[in-house]
């Protein structure tokens, strides 16, 4: 994380003095975007940089499920399993994704291309069921659309 410190310094300017511990969350987001996950050395370095006790960083990491302690596959499929999506067929989408990719939710394919996760509400109930491919929403998901999406991504397609 050391190479990110110039960026953190610029973030610091937006916070009142004495509120360095408020930077834990944005710094962790930036670290994860950089490395793909938050490593042990990032935690130690961030505690030292912000002068916050280690437990505060651990609390933030465990509270927010989108922060990861381990690396994932190249493409992250996150399927909503909250009530609106479930009622509109999310369970079938999850089951189909598992079958197509040969993994269970929370696992990564052997070739490291895909990680499948189930998540709580993505805030798009009007277009349920929803899944995210990395940072992009794919709405009104059907099994056919999912097949096409996985085929496209496997062939090296982008986040479209």
């Amino acid at each position, binding site marked *: 994380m050391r190479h990110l410190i110039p960026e953190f310094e610029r973030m610091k300017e937006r916070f009142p003095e004495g509120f360095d511990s408020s930077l834990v969350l944005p710094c962790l987001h930036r670290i994860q975007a950089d490395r793909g996950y938050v490593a042990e050395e990032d935690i130690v370095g961030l505690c030292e940089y912000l002068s916050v*006790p*280690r*437990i*505060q960083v*651990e609390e933030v990491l*465990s*509270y927010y499920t989108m922060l990861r302690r381990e690396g994932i596959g190249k493409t992250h499929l996150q399927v909503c399993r909250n009530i609106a999506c479930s009622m509109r067929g999310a369970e079938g989408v999850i089951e189909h994704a598992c079958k197509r990719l040969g993994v269970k939710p929370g696992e990564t394919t052997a070739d490291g291309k895909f990680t499948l996760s189930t998540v709580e509400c993505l805030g798009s109930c009007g277009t349920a069921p929803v899944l995210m491919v990395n940072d992009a929403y794919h709405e009104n998901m059907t099994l056919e659309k999912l097949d096409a999406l996985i085929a496209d991504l496997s062939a090296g397609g982008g986040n479209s």
Partner: protein
Amino acid sequence: MPAADGMVVFTASDKVKARRKATMEFITLNHPVDCGICDKAGECTLQDYHFEYNGGASVSRDAKTHATKHFDLSDRIVLDNERCIQCTRCVRFTREISKSNGLGMLDRGDHSIVRPSADGSFAKDAYSDNVIDLCPVGALLAKDFLHKARVWYLKATPSVCPGCERGCGVNLWHRKDEWMLRSPRQAARNDGLDRVTPIENPAVNGPWVCNKARDLPKLLGRVRAAGALFKGAPAPLEAAVLEARALIAEAKRPVAVVSSWASNEELAAFKAALGGRLALVAKRDHEPQPGEVVQDDLLIRADKNPNAAGVRAVLGECGTEVPKDADLVLVWGEGFDFRAVPASAKIVFLNAFLAPENGHADVFLPVSIQTERSGHYTNFAGVTSRFERCFALPPGVLHAEDLFGSLVGNGRGA
């Protein structure tokens, strides 16, 4: 709505009672209600409030969530996450009082659990055991006291921690007379301390004590010196007292090495009987042990003796080294290096615990410990605190306070 002059607040209306009952239902939703095997039962605020405000069985039809039981929070404390009601008092203690930042609340919702920081700071927190008292339920329990006794079998005797010159107020918990253990295997525990808790005293320790106070049962529970000795050979107590008296009477340059674990009463008795006769040397009975916190900003003081200030107040400034020409040295208490005694000098030794040095003295006399007498200590700031007796004097042991009068006089005759 903030409180204001003339406002009338109903705290026991039917509506308020119903809300309280509902709140108790919510707090106990996932609590295991295993009071029958919980050490906190009898002094648990959740139990008390449930009795006062709810009293009914759970109305929930859902299964209780499960969490870790018997989690090793440190080598001193065991955590039961199912009993925890997530009040976070323990977390706040490590942030605001002990400042170790050793505990935190991980995860969220009904998965929330108290956990120690991965950097191990909680295990190093010299005040960690205060979270056991702070815990309103039986989630945080002392390993040393685990399943040792129901709290209503015990009584608390007010005392003073002798662990350092702070002199924190403590309650020493030991078995009530009507709940003495009868089996021979367990009877030894009747004369021992079961646990130590702080007594709130704003002038000395506030509401806290350090872990050293919690370990007093071990410190004071060490094997005792059982009887008087002449050069290591068992001797009758009366004969030993007479012999000590004769040695003092015959000495030309007698020296007393005074204990800083002695009470003000003992020091006064010593001064009245022997103060004019012997040259005085003050002794630190206990020094900081390896790994022990020597001094900090909260309570812990560097002088690990409770009454160094009392020694100065009662006896004035004493010497620090035994004079080379001493021909008799009366050593009172632990922590003395006997190599400091001139080779030809006689030794009279007063000690409470079994130690190799006991057998080297010309006369050895076993004396009482703090829990067998009452008295006062004066702390570094000049505050004098009283400690009460917990146990009877064991047979064959003397109170130093009574002994000093018997050491005045001539010869070996009565």
